[in-house]
């Protein structure tokens, strides 16, 4: 069966190779085993039971290699012309000949030599990045003083109005890991934002564990702010969970702001986002619109960017000016897609912790960039 399949698709072997290499991605576990091309097998190079160990050889392993070989040998290349000159060589033969197999393995080994050297380069780069981060975190240390942060920020020509940070839940056994670590990191960022004068902060965490721990988060933020600003001058804050439409004011529900003798106006608004606020919210919106359209309360032509934008701003929040990723690589982790249109994205390569130096460098980068929509 595999034979006929292959015959019909030789014409676009390139396309075929792509789909089959996709297959091999899916079955990556099978792929860890060595694959033997058909030709080697027929000539008895491969022990019989090994060849049987791949579950459906026609579909995944062998045809992948064969197609790869075939696609590598482009009809226009010299190799094929030479092959054609060999007497007795049947041009219509579907089997890749030994020369082709050899060529494939030759180039495949070149690839692995390149990747081998690349891994050294990457190792050096990793060490370099870690050293740089280490140095920066020593150089920039807020030491729980808002004055230092203020001084750092006042040098910048502009600061973002809305900041979003992407955090990820680390395993419990790691240092600063688990939900407690996440809550601690969130409250730390809140304190930096208050000190820097940023009014809106959204914290994105893929699974939404923060949303389930709002009371602890509020207590932690209060504690952190009192460490930074002093027990008598704890600024007020608001925690929002947009997808449940909940708003929490201050540290406790019975928290009497007046008794603190301090201005009760909240200085920062923290909204908690998760994967729920991304694609699924857009899907929900589509469903609502479809429902309204059926009831003839909405005309299809009314569905415009402005309308969708207004609704999503209501449901999730306003697009942030700056997104800070505290992850080792640039990975948006399903962050709400509608809200990353013009946001400046900042991350520090190979950094895996929430660190003031990263926060400050993100603000510095933002202050130098200029947004010109389309122009």
């Amino acid at each position, binding site marked *: 069966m595999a034979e006929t399949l292959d015959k019909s698709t030789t014409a676009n072997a*390139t396309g075929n190779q792509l789909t089959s290499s996709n297959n091999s991605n899916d079955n990556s576990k099978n792929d860890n085993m060595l694959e033997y091309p058909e030709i080697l097998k027929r000539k008895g190079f491969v022990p019989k039971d090994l060849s049987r160990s791949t579950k459906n050889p026609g579909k995944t392993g062998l045809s992948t290699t064969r197609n790869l070989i075939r696609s590598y040998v482009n009809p226009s290349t010299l190799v094929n012309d030479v092959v054609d000159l060999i007497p007795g060589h049947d041009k219509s033969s579907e089997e890749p000949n030994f020369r082709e197999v050899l060529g494939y393995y030759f180039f495949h080994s070149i690839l692995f030599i390149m990747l081998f050297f690349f891994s050294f380069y990457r190792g050096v780069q990793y060490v370099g990045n870690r050293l740089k981060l280490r140095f920066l975190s020593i150089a920039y240390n807020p030491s729980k003083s808002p004055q230092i942060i203020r001084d750092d920020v006042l040098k910048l020509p502009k600061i973002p109005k809305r900041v979003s940070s992407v955090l990820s839940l680390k395993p419990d056994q790691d240092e600063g890991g688990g939900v407690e670590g996440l809550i601690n990191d969130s409250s730390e960022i809140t304190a930096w934002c208050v000190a820097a004068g940023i009014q809106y902060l959204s914290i994105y965490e893929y699974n939404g564990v923060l949303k389930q721990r709002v009371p602890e988060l509020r207590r932690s933020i209060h504690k952190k702010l009192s460490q930074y600003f002093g027990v008598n001058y704890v600024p007020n804050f608001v925690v929002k969970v947009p997808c449940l439409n909940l708003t929490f004011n201050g540290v406790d529900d019975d928290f009497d702001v007046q008794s603190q003798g301090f201005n009760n106006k909240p200085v920062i608004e923290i909204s908690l986002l998760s994967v729920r606020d991304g*694609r*699924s919210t857009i899907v929900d919106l589509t469903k609502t619109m479809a429902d309204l359209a059926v009831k003839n309360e909405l005309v299809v032509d009314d569905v415009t960017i402005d309308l969708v934008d207004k609704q999503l701003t209501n449901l999730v929040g306003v697009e942030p000016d700056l997104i800070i990723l505290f992850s080792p690589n640039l990975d948006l982790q399903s962050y709400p897609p509608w809200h990353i249109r013009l946001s400046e*994205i*900042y991350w520090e390569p190979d950094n895996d912790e929430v660190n003031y130096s990263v926060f400050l460098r993100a603000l510095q980068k933002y202050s130098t960039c200029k947004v010109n929509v389309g122009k």
Partner: protein
Amino acid sequence: MSLGSSWISTFPGYYQALEVLKSIVTSALKTGKIPQHVAFIMDGNRRFARKHHIEVKEGHNEGFNSLAEILDICYKCNVKAISIYAFSIENFKRSPFEVKNLMKLCERKFQQIIDHNDLCEKYGIKLIVSGDLSLLPDSLKNVLTNAQELTKNNSNAILNICIPYTSRDDITHSIRDINENNQNNKVIVSPQNYIDSIDEDCISKHLYTKDLPPLDILVRTSNIHRLSDFMLWETHLTGIYIQFLDILWPEFGAIRMIWIILKWSFIQYYNQYFKSI
């Protein structure tokens, strides 16, 4: 290309050696993992023109040359689909003179593709145009529809031209389409069933990019760390390799592209062999 201007290039046989090296590396890359879909934000043509004291028009021209080089190397490496951000809806805010020039340039280049058809024929490229075509001038619209018509039977590779495109417009367009379907579908399935069947896949299937394989790499030049309304729905997922380069688009060449593909395939092999254990 940055290497082309250095002193090494003055040696005899430099370019021939470079070509041989390039073809060896692409043959090697081809035997491994290759991205299915690469998207480009071509940014920095005007800054390039300003830097080199040439006209803006010339800058865009240089950008097109650089694009041709990139397309060539990508298709040689067996990349299935390439998306390019040719023109954003927001770009209509630029000076009318520049918009007119850009439109003319696009028209001329696509007319060339239709007339000679060599690039498309060589790699079997199917052209797809994503975006709200009704915003374009008629002559360009005709050229684009012709080009699509002419190449619709090719199946080896896809070139997706986003003109005039923004991702928000794309998502809105998808929502509108779903609504329209809903109204037309009343007889076949009950509206409630249809509404219940709406999910993420349904929105993806109504986007302009529905015929393309899932995105693997997004490249943006000129050191701006923003997506600028391009492929938001596709890029925000984990596992998309986003590259922000600190060079201008006309300076971006084949060697840089090979480097990006090598880095990407290193990550893929690394994840396969080390993360799965």
